[in-house]
């Protein structure tokens, strides 16, 4: 019911403003301060990842103890090393900047895998219903019952040497359930609309109705869910790396850095583990603000 009223509301706005839905959403998005903050934060992360090579003051894997001697070993934050250095004299700031590449890479590719599995399955379950729906919903419930990280770990453990490809495929293999649920409920609410019946009457094949006619109308909640999921994926990757199952040394992965630095925390050398953690938090916050903003701007599940 809320669905209908919101669509009507949407339509009314559209006539008044005479704008395209995308532009209209952008106008709403712009008015939301937290959403804009999320967008700016996300852009800074993307820029950091792209220009890490130019921005980073040092080579992220270069062990400065060999050139600068002991003073580069576990140096506390200073003007020279803004975030300090680690045991091998690697510059933490440079590693944090390069770490954005790893996290974004995982976030983007794992999300792609998630969408590739979740959207078609959700679409079939929602559109076809019946036995298809029962089977897919059963699979969703099964995957959902596993503790997320343990299932990803079990999938990763199947392979002998965990590479980043395996990590994002494994994350996608678990994470698709959330996208599948959203897609399914969208398709259920859209499948009996007139435009779908019209497409049916024209004798169009199912896959064409699903992908060309229904999916464009169901895309907004899927985008929102995928954006919100980015934060979760990045956290999971960090957790895997922390446990030693994700990125391997000397990759500048945030989770790995936290794990490498943790035994020095007790001695007071906190910077090795603290800065990468802040970077994870910043990234998760960015995507969560962005996701919230998109949800409001695209009018997804808006109650008011």
């Amino acid at each position, binding site marked *: 019911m809320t669905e209908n009223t919101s669509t009507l509301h949407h339509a009314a706005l559209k006539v008044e403003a005479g704008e395209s839905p995308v532009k209209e959403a952008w106008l709403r998005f712009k008015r939301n301060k937290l959403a804009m903050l999320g967008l700016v934060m996300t852009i800074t992360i993307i820029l950091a990842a792209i220009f890490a090579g130019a921005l980073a003051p040092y080579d992220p894997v270069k062990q400065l103890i060999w050139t600068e001697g002991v003073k580069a070993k576990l140096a506390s934050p200073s003007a020279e090393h803004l975030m300090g250095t680690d045991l091998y004299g690697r510059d933490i700031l440079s590693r944090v900047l390069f770490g954005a590449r790893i996290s974004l890479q995982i976030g983007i590719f794992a999300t792609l895998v998630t969408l590739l599995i979740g959207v078609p399955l959700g679409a079939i379950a929602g559109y076809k219903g019946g036995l298809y729906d029962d089977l897919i919903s059963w699979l969703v419930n099964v995957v959902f*019952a596993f*503790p997320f990280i*343990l299932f990803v770990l079990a999938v990763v*453990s199947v392979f002998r040497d965990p590479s980043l490809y395996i990590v994002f495929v494994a994350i996608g293999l678990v994470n698709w359930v959330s996208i599948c649920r959203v897609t399914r409920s969208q398709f259920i609410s859209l499948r009996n609309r007139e435009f779908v019946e019209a497409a049916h009457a024209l004798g169009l094949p199912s896959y064409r109705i699903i992908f060309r006619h229904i999916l464009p109308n169901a895309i907004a909640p899927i985008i929102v869910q995928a954006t919100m999921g980015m934060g979760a994926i990045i956290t999971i990757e960090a957790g895997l790396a*922390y*446990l030693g199952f994700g990125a391997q040394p000397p990759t500048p992965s945030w989770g790995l850095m*936290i794990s490498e630095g943790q035994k020095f925390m007790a001695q007071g050398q906190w910077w090795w583990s603290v800065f990468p953690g802040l970077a*994870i938090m910043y990234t*998760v916050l960015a995507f969560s603000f962005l996701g919230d903003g998109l949800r409001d701007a695209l009018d997804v599940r808006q109650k008011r």
Partner: protein
Amino acid sequence: MFAHIIRRLLYTIPVVWGVVTVIFILMAVVPGDPARLMMGQRGDPATIERIRHDLGLDLPMTQQYTKFIGELMRGDLGMSYRNNEKVASAIATRFAATMRLTIWAMCLAVAIGITAGILSAAKPNSIFDYSAMFLAVLGVSAPVFWVGLLLLLLFAYNLGWVPGIGFGDGSWRYLLLPAVALGVRPAALIARLTRSCMLEVLSQDYIRTARAKGVKETLVILKHALKNAMIPVVTIIGTQVSELLSGAVLTETIFAWPGVGRLAVEALINRDFPMIRGTVIVMAMTFLLANLLVDISYGFFDPRVKYEDK
């Protein structure tokens, strides 16, 4: 009510079967011979063959599967590849520690989250509201293992208020930090949700009526509004169980807490597949059971939920 519980139990059976089968398939496709893995380099072919036979690895896959399911029905999760220990008894000795950790984390999260949410909603846009919601946003986005390390750094290493890692003598002083670390994220989520649900309920007509009748504001919030605002909160507690168990895997590793999560991580490092299989199954069953309980508890919060109608 009773019929509903039975029906829900019946619905859970195919899911349980699915969980068990998926993990069996996953562990069966693992490359490498477990018998060789157990013996290392020193095993001669005859011994390896004997071990393969003892483990039932020489059977066809379908027979291994029926054997596995049969044993599972009797509560037998097989033998660990590592130290000739029964997987079921290894998990049994660790299970209580995990439950203690997750239940206390959840209690802390519910107590802090709901209190903060109510106080925020009672005075929206106040300084308390802003600071509580700011902390909640941070709490939702911080990875659990990093929060654990920060807590260790501050309260164990710098201030020395609590002992560091380990189970110690099992006293609450060892439990405090891991439970807080694990509870931070659910507490933050519950606080945000409680606040938004309370605000929504407080704007409804029956609350205005109650206020107009002169009911005290405290009573309006705690008696009239709270119960209705709790329904979505109970739902999120159910889904949080899954995150808590996931988080326990990391938290137990950081704090060297002797629970099932750490057992699972050790098993993964050792490639001890029966142990991985067992821990994953037990954790998934715990999640399913917790959700069943949450589902049943809806009736308490919302009498409109008529189980028979479903």
